């Protein structure tokens, strides 16, 4: 089925990726080509075929409910982002992990 600019915008919104008007046009052309490739699947009769998600027949392993992670606070702190408001570098070095407000 043919993709539209609206489809691109909807999917981009679902994927949380900003797409400008001109990007959307270019993306439409590329994705249309890729979906054309994917459409070849529709010619195959797959009635009754069990979907395969994984190459080995695995069952989920269980483990004892014990602490397995070591404390890596200092290492994680090296990737702690800054908020860009001037005071944050000090906050990070003081051991805070600053994130933007994510609950609105």
């Amino acid at each position, binding site marked *: 089925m043919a993709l539209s600019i609206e*489809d*691109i915008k909807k*999917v*981009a919104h*679902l*994927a*949380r*990726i*900003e*797409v400008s008007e001109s990007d959307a046009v270019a*993306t439409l052309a*590329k*994705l249309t*080509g*890729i*979906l*054309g*490739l*994917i*459409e*070849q*699947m*529709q010619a*195959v009769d*797959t009635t009754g*075929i*069990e*979907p*395969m*998600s*994984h*190459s*080995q027949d*695995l069952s*989920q*392993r269980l*483990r004892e409910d014990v602490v397995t992670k070591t404390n*890596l606070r200092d*290492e*994680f702190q*090296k*990737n*702690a*982002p800054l908020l*860009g408001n001037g005071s944050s570098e000090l906050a990070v070095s003081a051991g805070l*992990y600053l*994130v*933007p*407000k*994510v609950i*609105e």
Partner: protein
Amino acid sequence: MINSSLKQLGDMLQAKKISSVELTQTFLDRIKLYNPSINAYIALDEVKTLAQAKVADARFSAGNAAPLTGIPIAQKDIFCAKGWPTTCGSKMLANFIAPYDAHVITQFDSAGAVNLGKTNMDEFAMGSSNETSYFGGVKNPWSFDRVPGGSSGGSAAAVAARLCAAATGTDTGGSIRQPASLCGFTGLKPTYGVVSRFGMIAFASSLDQAGPMAKSAEDCALMMNVMAGFDERDSTSLNRGKEDYTRSLNLPLAGLKIGLPKEFFAEGLDASVGKVIETAIAEYKKLGAEIIEISLPNTGLSIPVYYVLAPAEASSNLSRYDGVRYGHRAAEYTDLMDMYNKSRAEGFGAEVKRRILIGTYVLSAGYYDAYYLKAQQIRRLIAQDFVEAFKQCDVIMGPAAPSTAFKSGEKVDDPVAMYLQDIYTISTNLAGLPGMSIPAGFAQSDDGVSLPVGLQIIGNYFDEARMLNIAHQYQQVTDWHTIMPNLDKPNLEMPEGKV
């Protein structure tokens, strides 16, 4: 020395003919000389690297060295290595310092190997030319205006240019084997689940598998002895007990049944590549192998299926990069939604965004059955093709890639043409089977440059040791794997005597 096998280097270290510090420095000096033009490494840290070499030398003095102790290894930048930048070739992770080691890194550290640096790669391993890397493309050491293949392009160029003793790679749809073919060395993608994915940045989790990239099958076997093994931190790691992958190297090949899938020699294969593969097969006949024509009828469907499943898994895996806790965050935004949208739009490159969008689309409401479920059903058909094939033969052979290395920029604007690079490799990932590429000779390009061609060997589940034996025996009677590119005079005429 730069062209010595891992075993030879190990023996030299053991006999104290050379120290690990000296060996490591030799490679670091070569990297300094050639990396500015090749761009194989995107992170180097001489202090860290030489400190590991010193520790290795101490192990030799203390008499507790292991087979890869003191050997300088290049690590694909998809593996977290504590204290090292780990970017996965993306702007999104340009400033990320890995807080812990991937299982693969831990294994090499325990073996006493030396981490030479992190190698360039297609962004999040999505690409077949290394051109999607945020840190720029990588030159093919045989011809600097051509690509090394991808996504493990930096590791590939480093092995081919002898800027490391060996390297690691990962292969989701061909990312070890296609660059091995285009750069002329030996690369192995093991059975899914043999090497732990812990600490390896996820692309498509049901397909991702790490493996060795090295000069020979014997070197790959030694690398596998370090890399493979059960790790409970990866939920799909297989608990099978330790194997010695060198154990079968010297077995004779008489009676070996080699299946040639007719679909691998059909339209789409460059004639010059086909000719090299035929010559390699003839060599196997001389070694006593029997050749059987087989069919993998659903080969053509592997690309459509892959471009549903891999983007679907990627769209989920890459949703973690939201600009909140780590990774790129847009400098300016109006609200939370705008922060997500802008951070991801700025942090990801064009190909990664395309795949996230495709993945999001095929998983979105109303399309799941038509795309995702359908692809999973055909995935089973593709896997069943191999089950049938292995009733007739021990191993499958064919080309690893449809052409030799192509020119940089040639396929950048045509994703579908780029995807077709992996036509012979993707089906093994979908089936979870092991596959390798070994140097089989050279083909002449249209503009008169000699470029390497790789022979692909596909084995049944857990047949890595047998495949390494099959590759090793070929490498005992041929010398393609020993031929090095001339980095001071790339765009070579044919190496002497090899027309």
